[in-house]
Protein backbone atom coordinates (compact mmCIF):
# COMPACT_ATOMS: atom_id res chain seq x y z
CA UNK A 1 0.00 0.00 0.00
CA UNK A 2 1.23 3.42 -0.82
CA UNK A 3 0.43 5.45 2.26
CA UNK A 4 1.25 8.76 0.65
CA UNK A 5 -0.79 8.65 -2.52
CA UNK A 6 -3.27 5.89 -2.35
CA UNK A 7 -5.36 6.54 0.68
CA UNK A 8 -8.80 5.11 0.16
CA UNK A 9 -11.63 7.20 1.45
CA UNK A 10 -15.24 6.48 2.07
CA UNK A 11 -17.64 9.17 0.98
CA UNK A 12 -20.97 7.88 2.05
CA UNK A 13 -22.12 11.20 3.45
CA UNK A 14 -22.67 14.62 2.00
CA UNK A 15 -20.01 17.24 2.54
CA UNK A 16 -20.89 19.68 5.27
CA UNK A 17 -20.81 22.74 3.09
CA UNK A 18 -23.84 23.36 0.93
CA UNK A 19 -23.27 25.68 -2.00
CA UNK A 20 -26.14 27.64 -3.46
CA UNK A 21 -26.11 27.23 -7.19
CA UNK A 22 -28.69 27.45 -9.96
CA UNK A 23 -31.17 24.65 -9.91
CA UNK A 24 -30.65 23.69 -13.51
CA UNK A 25 -27.95 21.54 -14.89
CA UNK A 26 -27.01 23.62 -17.89
CA UNK A 27 -26.57 27.33 -17.49
CA UNK A 28 -29.04 29.54 -19.35
CA UNK A 29 -26.20 30.81 -21.51
CA UNK A 30 -25.21 27.30 -22.49
CA UNK A 31 -28.80 26.47 -23.37
CA UNK A 32 -29.25 29.76 -25.20
CA UNK A 33 -26.15 29.14 -27.31
CA UNK A 34 -27.53 25.78 -28.32
CA UNK A 35 -30.80 27.40 -29.26
CA UNK A 36 -29.16 30.09 -31.38
CA UNK A 37 -28.80 27.56 -34.17
CA UNK A 38 -32.56 27.28 -34.23
CA UNK A 39 -32.96 31.03 -34.00
CA UNK A 40 -30.65 31.48 -36.97
CA UNK A 41 -32.63 28.96 -39.02
CA UNK A 42 -35.88 30.61 -37.99
CA UNK A 43 -34.63 34.02 -39.11
CA UNK A 44 -33.06 32.74 -42.32
CA UNK A 45 -36.37 31.15 -43.32
CA UNK A 46 -37.87 34.66 -43.24
CA UNK A 47 -35.23 37.02 -44.56
CA UNK A 48 -33.70 34.52 -46.98
CA UNK A 49 -30.12 35.76 -46.86
CA UNK A 50 -27.10 35.12 -44.73
CA UNK A 51 -26.08 38.73 -44.12
CA UNK A 52 -29.35 39.80 -42.49
CA UNK A 53 -29.71 36.44 -40.72
CA UNK A 54 -26.36 36.92 -39.02
CA UNK A 55 -27.10 40.51 -38.03
CA UNK A 56 -30.46 39.58 -36.56
CA UNK A 57 -29.17 36.48 -34.75
CA UNK A 58 -26.48 38.61 -33.18
CA UNK A 59 -29.08 41.16 -32.11
CA UNK A 60 -31.14 38.42 -30.49
CA UNK A 61 -28.12 37.04 -28.64
CA UNK A 62 -27.06 40.45 -27.35
CA UNK A 63 -30.54 41.40 -26.29
CA UNK A 64 -31.81 38.15 -24.83
CA UNK A 65 -28.85 36.39 -23.25
CA UNK A 66 -27.98 39.05 -20.65
CA UNK A 67 -31.61 39.02 -19.53
CA UNK A 68 -31.90 35.32 -18.92
CA UNK A 69 -32.60 34.42 -15.35
CA UNK A 70 -30.10 32.09 -13.76
CA UNK A 71 -32.79 29.55 -12.93
CA UNK A 72 -34.51 29.59 -16.30
CA UNK A 73 -35.23 26.23 -17.86
CA UNK A 74 -34.79 25.22 -21.49
CA UNK A 75 -38.38 25.79 -22.56
CA UNK A 76 -38.51 29.25 -21.00
CA UNK A 77 -35.21 30.18 -22.62
CA UNK A 78 -36.37 28.92 -26.00
CA UNK A 79 -39.60 30.86 -25.75
CA UNK A 80 -37.75 34.02 -24.77
CA UNK A 81 -35.24 33.69 -27.59
CA UNK A 82 -37.95 33.15 -30.18
CA UNK A 83 -40.04 36.00 -28.81
CA UNK A 84 -36.95 38.20 -29.09
CA UNK A 85 -36.36 36.93 -32.63
CA UNK A 86 -39.95 37.71 -33.66
CA UNK A 87 -39.58 41.20 -32.24
CA UNK A 88 -36.27 41.72 -34.05
CA UNK A 89 -37.83 40.54 -37.32
CA UNK A 90 -40.83 42.83 -36.93
CA UNK A 91 -38.50 45.77 -36.34
CA UNK A 92 -36.40 44.70 -39.33
CA UNK A 93 -39.36 44.71 -41.73
CA UNK A 94 -40.81 47.85 -40.21
CA UNK A 95 -37.53 49.69 -40.74
CA UNK A 96 -37.12 48.43 -44.31
CA UNK A 97 -40.56 49.43 -45.48
CA UNK A 98 -41.16 52.40 -43.18
CA UNK A 99 -44.35 50.77 -41.98
CA UNK A 100 -45.63 50.75 -38.41
CA UNK A 101 -45.40 47.37 -36.74
CA UNK A 102 -49.15 46.97 -36.60
CA UNK A 103 -49.41 47.15 -40.39
CA UNK A 104 -47.10 44.20 -40.80
CA UNK A 105 -48.98 40.98 -40.64
CA UNK A 106 -48.04 39.04 -37.58
CA UNK A 107 -45.52 36.40 -38.33
CA UNK A 108 -47.18 33.18 -37.27
CA UNK A 109 -45.47 30.87 -39.70
CA UNK A 110 -43.66 28.91 -37.13
CA UNK A 111 -44.49 27.41 -33.82
CA UNK A 112 -41.33 27.89 -31.80
CA UNK A 113 -41.97 24.62 -29.98
CA UNK A 114 -41.33 22.74 -33.18
CA UNK A 115 -38.20 20.67 -33.20
CA UNK A 116 -37.31 22.08 -36.60
CA UNK A 117 -38.48 25.67 -36.78
CA UNK A 118 -37.95 25.96 -40.52
CA UNK A 119 -40.06 22.97 -41.44
CA UNK A 120 -43.39 24.71 -41.17
CA UNK A 121 -42.07 27.61 -43.19
CA UNK A 122 -40.92 25.30 -45.97
CA UNK A 123 -44.25 23.50 -45.95
CA UNK A 124 -46.05 26.81 -46.26
CA UNK A 125 -43.90 27.79 -49.22
CA UNK A 126 -44.84 24.49 -50.85
CA UNK A 127 -48.51 25.13 -50.22
CA UNK A 128 -48.30 28.60 -51.73
CA UNK A 129 -46.46 27.38 -54.81
CA UNK A 130 -49.02 24.64 -55.22
CA UNK A 131 -51.81 27.18 -55.45
CA UNK A 132 -50.18 29.32 -58.13
CA UNK A 133 -50.74 29.07 -61.87
CA UNK A 134 -48.26 26.67 -63.47
CA UNK A 135 -46.18 29.32 -65.20
CA UNK A 136 -45.75 31.36 -62.01
CA UNK A 137 -44.94 28.25 -60.02
CA UNK A 138 -42.33 27.13 -62.53
CA UNK A 139 -40.69 30.54 -62.60
CA UNK A 140 -40.45 30.78 -58.82
CA UNK A 141 -39.19 27.22 -58.46
CA UNK A 142 -36.48 27.77 -61.07
CA UNK A 143 -35.41 31.13 -59.70
CA UNK A 144 -35.62 30.56 -55.96
CA UNK A 145 -35.39 26.85 -55.35
CA UNK A 146 -33.17 25.67 -58.20
CA UNK A 147 -30.84 28.63 -58.36
CA UNK A 148 -31.43 29.65 -62.00
CA UNK A 149 -30.28 33.09 -63.04
CA UNK A 150 -32.91 35.34 -64.56
CA UNK A 151 -31.39 34.76 -68.01
CA UNK A 152 -31.61 31.01 -67.54
CA UNK A 153 -35.21 31.31 -66.39
CA UNK A 154 -36.03 33.42 -69.44
CA UNK A 155 -34.44 30.83 -71.72
CA UNK A 156 -36.28 28.01 -69.98
CA UNK A 157 -39.61 29.79 -70.26
CA UNK A 158 -38.95 31.07 -73.79
CA UNK A 159 -39.32 34.72 -72.99
CA UNK A 160 -37.20 37.85 -72.78
CA UNK A 161 -35.24 39.07 -69.79
CA UNK A 162 -37.58 42.04 -69.39
CA UNK A 163 -40.56 39.77 -69.74
CA UNK A 164 -39.40 37.37 -67.09
CA UNK A 165 -38.71 40.22 -64.67
CA UNK A 166 -42.29 41.39 -65.00
CA UNK A 167 -43.51 37.83 -64.72
CA UNK A 168 -41.45 37.39 -61.56
CA UNK A 169 -43.04 40.49 -60.03
CA UNK A 170 -46.51 39.24 -60.87
CA UNK A 171 -45.74 35.79 -59.56
CA UNK A 172 -44.48 37.19 -56.27
CA UNK A 173 -47.53 39.41 -55.91
CA UNK A 174 -49.77 36.42 -56.63
CA UNK A 175 -47.86 34.36 -54.08
CA UNK A 176 -48.31 37.14 -51.51
CA UNK A 177 -52.07 37.09 -52.12
CA UNK A 178 -52.18 33.32 -51.77
CA UNK A 179 -50.00 33.56 -48.68
CA UNK A 180 -52.26 36.07 -47.00
CA UNK A 181 -55.14 33.60 -47.35
CA UNK A 182 -53.10 30.65 -46.19
Amino acid at each position, binding site marked *: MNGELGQPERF*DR*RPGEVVELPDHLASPVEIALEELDFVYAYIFARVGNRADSEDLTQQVALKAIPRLRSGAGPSAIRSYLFATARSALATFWSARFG*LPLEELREDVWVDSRQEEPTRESVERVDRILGKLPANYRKLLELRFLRGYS*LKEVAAELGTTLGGVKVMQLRALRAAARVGSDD
Partner: protein
Amino acid sequence: MTEPHEEKRAARIDRIVGDVLAGRHLKATPSDATDHEAIRVAAALAGSREGYPRMSPAFRRRLTQMLQKGEAPAWISRRSALVAGLGLAAGAVGGALASEMAAPVSPRTRARETVEPLPALGRWVDTGLTLADLEAGVPRRVTAGAIGAFLVRHGDQVSAMSAICTHLPCELVWMADRSVLNCPCHNLAFTLDGQPLSDRYPPPPTLPKVRVRVLAGGRLEVLGT
Protein backbone atom coordinates in the same frame (compact mmCIF):
# COMPACT_ATOMS: atom_id res chain seq x y z
CA MET B 1 -49.22 44.04 -71.72
CA THR B 2 -46.79 45.71 -69.37
CA GLU B 3 -46.80 49.30 -68.28
CA PRO B 4 -43.55 51.25 -67.98
CA HIS B 5 -44.24 51.62 -64.31
CA GLU B 6 -44.59 47.87 -63.90
CA GLU B 7 -41.33 47.26 -65.74
CA LYS B 8 -39.60 49.68 -63.41
CA ARG B 9 -41.06 47.95 -60.38
CA ALA B 10 -40.12 44.56 -61.82
CA ALA B 11 -36.52 45.66 -62.29
CA ARG B 12 -36.43 47.07 -58.78
CA ILE B 13 -37.83 43.90 -57.22
CA ASP B 14 -35.38 41.79 -59.21
CA ARG B 15 -32.45 43.76 -57.79
CA ILE B 16 -33.73 43.05 -54.29
CA VAL B 17 -34.26 39.38 -55.15
CA GLY B 18 -30.79 39.13 -56.70
CA ASP B 19 -29.17 40.47 -53.55
CA VAL B 20 -31.09 38.10 -51.32
CA LEU B 21 -30.28 35.08 -53.46
CA ALA B 22 -26.61 36.07 -53.40
CA GLY B 23 -26.65 36.14 -49.59
CA ARG B 24 -26.46 39.92 -49.40
CA HIS B 25 -28.58 42.26 -47.29
CA LEU B 26 -32.17 42.77 -48.34
CA LYS B 27 -32.12 46.38 -49.49
CA ALA B 28 -35.79 47.26 -49.52
CA THR B 29 -36.74 50.83 -48.65
CA PRO B 30 -40.00 52.62 -47.84
CA SER B 31 -40.41 53.16 -51.59
CA ASP B 32 -41.00 49.40 -51.77
CA ALA B 33 -43.73 49.42 -49.14
CA THR B 34 -46.50 48.76 -51.65
CA ASP B 35 -44.84 45.46 -52.47
CA HIS B 36 -43.80 44.57 -48.96
CA GLU B 37 -45.76 41.33 -48.93
CA ALA B 38 -44.35 40.25 -52.30
CA ILE B 39 -40.83 41.00 -51.06
CA ARG B 40 -41.41 39.04 -47.88
CA VAL B 41 -42.66 36.10 -49.91
CA ALA B 42 -39.53 36.36 -52.05
CA ALA B 43 -37.41 36.31 -48.91
CA ALA B 44 -39.29 33.28 -47.61
CA LEU B 45 -38.85 31.50 -50.94
CA ALA B 46 -35.13 32.25 -50.82
CA GLY B 47 -35.07 31.11 -47.19
CA SER B 48 -36.59 27.76 -48.06
CA ARG B 49 -33.88 26.81 -50.53
CA GLU B 50 -31.68 25.46 -47.77
CA GLY B 51 -33.11 22.48 -45.96
CA TYR B 52 -31.66 23.46 -42.64
CA PRO B 53 -29.73 26.73 -42.71
CA ARG B 54 -26.79 26.73 -40.37
CA MET B 55 -24.58 29.44 -39.02
CA SER B 56 -21.26 29.61 -40.82
CA PRO B 57 -18.23 28.64 -38.72
CA ALA B 58 -16.87 32.18 -39.10
CA PHE B 59 -20.06 33.74 -37.79
CA ARG B 60 -20.20 31.24 -34.97
CA ARG B 61 -16.69 32.24 -33.93
CA ARG B 62 -17.52 35.94 -34.08
CA LEU B 63 -20.63 35.41 -32.01
CA THR B 64 -18.70 33.47 -29.41
CA GLN B 65 -16.00 36.09 -29.20
CA MET B 66 -18.61 38.78 -28.79
CA LEU B 67 -20.25 36.92 -25.94
CA GLN B 68 -16.88 36.39 -24.30
CA LYS B 69 -16.00 40.07 -24.34
CA GLY B 70 -18.00 41.10 -21.35
CA GLU B 71 -21.49 40.96 -22.70
CA ALA B 72 -22.01 37.84 -20.66
CA PRO B 73 -24.58 38.29 -17.93
CA ALA B 74 -23.46 39.24 -14.48
CA TRP B 75 -24.66 36.02 -12.93
CA ILE B 76 -21.96 34.08 -14.75
CA SER B 77 -19.45 35.89 -12.64
CA ARG B 78 -21.52 35.20 -9.56
CA ARG B 79 -21.69 31.52 -10.30
CA SER B 80 -18.04 31.44 -11.14
CA ALA B 81 -17.24 33.15 -7.88
CA LEU B 82 -18.98 30.38 -6.02
CA VAL B 83 -16.57 27.87 -7.41
CA ALA B 84 -13.59 30.18 -7.68
CA GLY B 85 -11.73 28.07 -5.19
CA LEU B 86 -11.77 25.29 -7.71
CA GLY B 87 -10.30 27.51 -10.38
CA LEU B 88 -13.35 27.99 -12.57
CA ALA B 89 -13.69 31.58 -13.66
CA ALA B 90 -15.78 33.37 -16.21
CA GLY B 91 -13.04 32.84 -18.72
CA ALA B 92 -13.21 29.14 -18.20
CA VAL B 93 -16.95 29.17 -18.73
CA GLY B 94 -16.44 31.25 -21.83
CA GLY B 95 -13.70 28.96 -22.98
CA ALA B 96 -15.94 25.96 -22.69
CA LEU B 97 -18.64 27.75 -24.58
CA ALA B 98 -16.13 28.88 -27.16
CA SER B 99 -15.05 25.37 -27.87
CA GLU B 100 -18.65 24.31 -28.20
CA MET B 101 -19.49 27.17 -30.48
CA ALA B 102 -16.44 26.81 -32.66
CA ALA B 103 -17.13 23.19 -33.48
CA PRO B 104 -19.82 22.17 -35.92
CA VAL B 105 -22.75 20.99 -33.88
CA SER B 106 -25.89 19.12 -34.55
CA PRO B 107 -28.63 20.61 -32.38
CA ARG B 108 -30.16 18.25 -29.84
CA THR B 109 -28.33 15.20 -31.08
CA ARG B 110 -24.82 16.31 -30.33
CA ALA B 111 -22.91 13.95 -28.10
CA ARG B 112 -20.78 15.75 -25.61
CA GLU B 113 -17.31 14.43 -25.59
CA THR B 114 -15.90 12.86 -22.49
CA VAL B 115 -12.17 12.99 -22.20
CA GLU B 116 -10.30 10.43 -20.25
CA PRO B 117 -7.85 12.04 -17.85
CA LEU B 118 -4.37 10.89 -18.75
CA PRO B 119 -1.89 12.43 -16.38
CA ALA B 120 1.15 13.52 -18.33
CA LEU B 121 3.40 12.42 -15.52
CA GLY B 122 1.17 9.54 -14.62
CA ARG B 123 2.10 6.52 -12.61
CA TRP B 124 0.24 3.58 -11.23
CA VAL B 125 -0.75 4.27 -7.65
CA ASP B 126 -1.64 1.58 -5.18
CA THR B 127 -5.08 2.33 -3.84
CA GLY B 128 -4.62 0.29 -0.71
CA LEU B 129 -7.63 -1.76 -1.69
CA THR B 130 -7.95 -5.25 -3.03
CA LEU B 131 -10.70 -6.79 -5.08
CA ALA B 132 -12.03 -8.40 -1.92
CA ASP B 133 -12.58 -4.96 -0.43
CA LEU B 134 -15.08 -4.06 -3.13
CA GLU B 135 -18.69 -5.04 -2.86
CA ALA B 136 -20.62 -5.37 -6.11
CA GLY B 137 -22.73 -2.27 -6.73
CA VAL B 138 -21.04 -0.23 -4.02
CA PRO B 139 -18.36 2.16 -5.29
CA ARG B 140 -15.30 3.04 -3.28
CA ARG B 141 -13.71 6.45 -3.45
CA VAL B 142 -9.94 6.55 -3.92
CA THR B 143 -7.37 9.17 -4.70
CA ALA B 144 -4.23 8.72 -6.73
CA GLY B 145 -2.46 12.02 -6.53
CA ALA B 146 -4.46 14.52 -8.51
CA ILE B 147 -6.93 11.89 -9.68
CA GLY B 148 -10.01 11.22 -7.62
CA ALA B 149 -11.97 8.18 -8.70
CA PHE B 150 -14.71 5.76 -7.79
CA LEU B 151 -13.93 2.07 -8.19
CA VAL B 152 -16.77 -0.28 -9.07
CA ARG B 153 -16.54 -4.05 -9.04
CA HIS B 154 -18.01 -6.14 -11.85
CA GLY B 155 -17.31 -9.75 -10.93
CA ASP B 156 -13.56 -10.16 -11.24
CA GLN B 157 -13.21 -6.88 -13.09
CA VAL B 158 -13.05 -3.36 -11.75
CA SER B 159 -13.92 -0.14 -13.51
CA ALA B 160 -13.08 3.35 -12.38
CA MET B 161 -14.51 6.74 -13.15
CA SER B 162 -13.76 10.29 -12.20
CA ALA B 163 -15.17 11.48 -8.91
CA ILE B 164 -15.74 14.99 -10.26
CA CYS B 165 -19.07 16.08 -11.70
CA THR B 166 -18.82 16.88 -15.40
CA HIS B 167 -20.93 20.00 -15.15
CA LEU B 168 -19.37 21.88 -12.29
CA PRO B 169 -16.18 20.73 -10.61
CA CYS B 170 -17.87 19.42 -7.49
CA GLU B 171 -16.99 16.19 -5.73
CA LEU B 172 -19.55 13.47 -6.27
CA VAL B 173 -20.81 11.55 -3.28
CA TRP B 174 -22.21 8.04 -3.08
CA MET B 175 -25.88 7.96 -2.16
CA ALA B 176 -26.39 4.42 -0.99
CA ASP B 177 -30.15 4.77 -0.64
CA ARG B 178 -30.51 5.69 -4.31
CA SER B 179 -27.49 3.79 -5.64
CA VAL B 180 -26.22 6.84 -7.50
CA LEU B 181 -23.29 9.17 -7.43
CA ASN B 182 -24.70 12.53 -6.56
CA CYS B 183 -23.41 16.02 -7.22
CA PRO B 184 -24.19 18.14 -4.18
CA CYS B 185 -23.89 21.34 -6.20
CA HIS B 186 -26.82 20.63 -8.50
CA ASN B 187 -28.43 17.56 -7.06
CA LEU B 188 -27.51 15.79 -10.28
CA ALA B 189 -26.88 12.07 -10.23
CA PHE B 190 -24.80 9.62 -12.24
CA THR B 191 -25.17 5.88 -12.52
CA LEU B 192 -22.34 3.53 -11.71
CA ASP B 193 -21.68 3.42 -15.46
CA GLY B 194 -20.97 7.13 -15.31
CA GLN B 195 -24.12 8.06 -17.20
CA PRO B 196 -25.94 11.22 -16.11
CA LEU B 197 -29.42 10.69 -14.76
CA SER B 198 -31.07 13.80 -16.02
CA ASP B 199 -33.81 14.85 -18.36
CA ARG B 200 -32.42 18.33 -18.38
CA TYR B 201 -31.08 19.81 -21.52
CA PRO B 202 -28.36 19.55 -22.62
CA PRO B 203 -27.16 16.48 -20.75
CA PRO B 204 -23.69 16.69 -19.26
CA PRO B 205 -20.94 14.38 -20.48
CA THR B 206 -20.61 10.98 -18.93
CA LEU B 207 -18.04 10.71 -16.19
CA PRO B 208 -14.53 10.27 -17.60
CA LYS B 209 -13.13 6.80 -17.20
CA VAL B 210 -10.08 6.38 -15.04
CA ARG B 211 -7.59 3.63 -15.70
CA VAL B 212 -7.47 0.89 -13.10
CA ARG B 213 -5.77 -2.47 -13.00
CA VAL B 214 -6.01 -5.56 -10.83
CA LEU B 215 -2.68 -7.02 -9.78
CA ALA B 216 -1.70 -10.29 -8.20
CA GLY B 217 -3.51 -10.85 -4.99
CA GLY B 218 -6.30 -8.60 -6.15
CA ARG B 219 -4.42 -5.38 -5.42
CA LEU B 220 -5.95 -2.42 -7.19
CA GLU B 221 -3.91 0.31 -8.82
CA VAL B 222 -5.18 3.49 -10.44
CA LEU B 223 -3.31 5.55 -13.00
CA GLY B 224 -2.74 8.75 -11.10
CA THR B 225 -0.07 11.36 -10.61
